[in-house]
């Protein structure tokens, strides 16, 4: 079952097969959590959103249309339809949550940091990392989501555009504007050799 394709597992989950659903969760949990954490900027919100996304998977499973069914959007060479659908649900949930009031936005961005590092070099790296995280947090939500999907989680452009429900041209526009904004706000780090 571990090698079974997502869509086949989803079809089985739709028939109430909990073990098939479990394989799907284990397969996608880490990446889904990372995407949500990149978009939302903090772990607790990200984990809530991921749980909601997987709950929707389970509830949607009985109605699931396998990739080869008529009307399916999946094409040869693309990642399985399930992953595209999951990342779209997840991204929408993240963007919806970001539209709510954000009273402690930048403080939350600091939660991204893994504080297990110590030592001066690690502290310096942590400071730079925090600045980058804060610059990411200041990006418009959809630009940050595009970077999270394409840059940090290495989704292909077709899949990332589908997750954001936009064209590839619009995705590229978001990415360009996001990278440009980061370059403008973090340019001193690159000049100081931070980009080396």
């Amino acid at each position: 079952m571990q090698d079974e394709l997502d869509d086949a597992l989803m079809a089985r989950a739709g028939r109430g097969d909990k073990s098939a659903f479990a394989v799907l969760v284990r397969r996608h949990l880490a990446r889904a959590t990372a995407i949500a954490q990149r978009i939302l900027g903090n772990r607790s919100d990200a984990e809530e959103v991921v749980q909601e996304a997987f709950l929707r998977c389970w509830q949607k499973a009985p109605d699931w249309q396998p990739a080869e069914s008529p009307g399916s959007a999946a094409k040869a060479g693309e990642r399985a339809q399930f992953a595209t659908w999951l990342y779209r649900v997840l991204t929408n949930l993240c963007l919806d949550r970001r539209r709510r009031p954000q009273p402690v936005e930048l403080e939350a961005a600091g939660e991204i940091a893994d504080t297990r590092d110590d030592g001066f070099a690690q502290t310096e790296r942590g400071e730079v990392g925090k600045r980058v995280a804060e610059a990411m947090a200041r990006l418009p939500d959809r630009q940050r989501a595009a970077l999270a999907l394409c840059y940090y989680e290495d989704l292909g452009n077709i899949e990332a555009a589908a997750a954001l429900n936009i064209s590839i041209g619009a995705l590229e526009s978001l990415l360009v504007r996001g990278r440009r904004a980061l370059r403008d706000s973090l340019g001193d780090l690159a000049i100081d050799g931070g980009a080396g």
Partner: protein
Amino acid sequence: MMGLDRFRELLDAYGAEPRRWPANERAMAEALFAQNPRARDLRAKAATIDALLDRTAPLAPPIIDAEILIGQITAMPQSQVVAFRPAQRPAAGTFWLKVGSLAAAAVIGFLLGVTQLANIGENSAPTSVLELADISPW
């Protein structure tokens, strides 16, 4: 063959790493990069922004437990249970039972209301007057 303009667009959007370039353009972009010194300069500039992005703080390790999550979610009903349950029309008996219950509740409510009003009229008013008299400076 890819032009330099499109190559620049790819770098601006996806960065300097070929693995992030669109699959259908990657080979052409790599060919241009191999042949054109200007393309190599552009890629080097894009790499500086990649390096900044790579310096972001690492993600905090997730504390979500997959097995607990699976257990909680699969304990929930699936949409099939709701969506495909045949819609059931209420039987005629059920309908009149609901109407009867509603009417009975209305009558009981009315009687309770009347009784409470009567009690207020008999007991509360004199007490209130006395209490008001006690605290009144006049």
